[in-house]
């Protein structure tokens, strides 16, 4: 059960980081469009929902998507995107480690 909730949270966060990359990419693209409002994902809301056991990630992401009224600063969006990229890579590695552990446990059970 503990493994399940950990996996759900990891997958949820990975989904959120991927979706955030899409939103930030749109912000960078729309930087020169008059009246374009940048969007972002509030990870606090995502984390709160995932901890509460909410498995509907699409609903969580739409709830956590926030629109900013301020004009787009290209450098700010790029730095946000880079930080999120690092988070994404870190999450894929943690997820990969979890799968590897699972694989090893299965093999050990078979051998035993």
């Amino acid at each position: 059960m503990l493994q399940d909730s950990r996996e759900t949270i990891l997958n949820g966060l990975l989904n959120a980081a991927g979706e955030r990359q899409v939103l930030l990419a749109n912000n960078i693209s729309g930087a020169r469009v008059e009246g374009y409002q940048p969007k972002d994902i509030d990870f606090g809301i995502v984390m709160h929902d995932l901890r509460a056991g909410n498995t509907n990630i699409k609903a969580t992401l739409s709830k956590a998507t926030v629109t900013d009224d301020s004009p787009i600063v290209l450098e700010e969006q790029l730095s946000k995107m880079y930080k999120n990229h690092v988070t994404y890579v870190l999450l894929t590695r943690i997820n990969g480690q979890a799968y590897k552990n699972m694989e090893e446990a299965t093999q050990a059970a078979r051998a035993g």
Partner: protein
Amino acid sequence: MGGMFEILDTASNSLKTERECMGYAAENVANAYTPGYKAKTPVLMAKGRNQSFSEMVEHLAEGREIPLNAMLLNKNPGSGTMVGSVAVDSSEGTQLYLPNHPLANAQGYVESSNVNGPAESIKMLRAVTSYKAILSMVEMTKAASKEALNMTKNA
């Protein structure tokens, strides 16, 4: 991973738009000495989001059918930007007294183009900055996709 395709589609649309903007600025600069030429400025707008490749894969994974036509006709997926319209600056250019010019009017004046050289340079610089930002976005996406594909290998 699906979202990564969308970023690449968005980037490709936006790169195309920025290239078009550079094209318009180059056209204006090239015609700076063409009598009567009016400067053109592209007006950018957010592109409507078509069904992306990743969404189609999701539909297939959920067992929903995708009409083959929709898949074949979906030539331009993803969001991003597009050139919505082209604004032509209607202001008059400077009147130059060139009585021997073939385009001179009865009084011997020729209307020069209304292209503002420094303004065009700034427009081009802005387009190049955006173009570079979008390219770095593509690089990040490439690295992230690679990481996702090698999830268990890199852990």
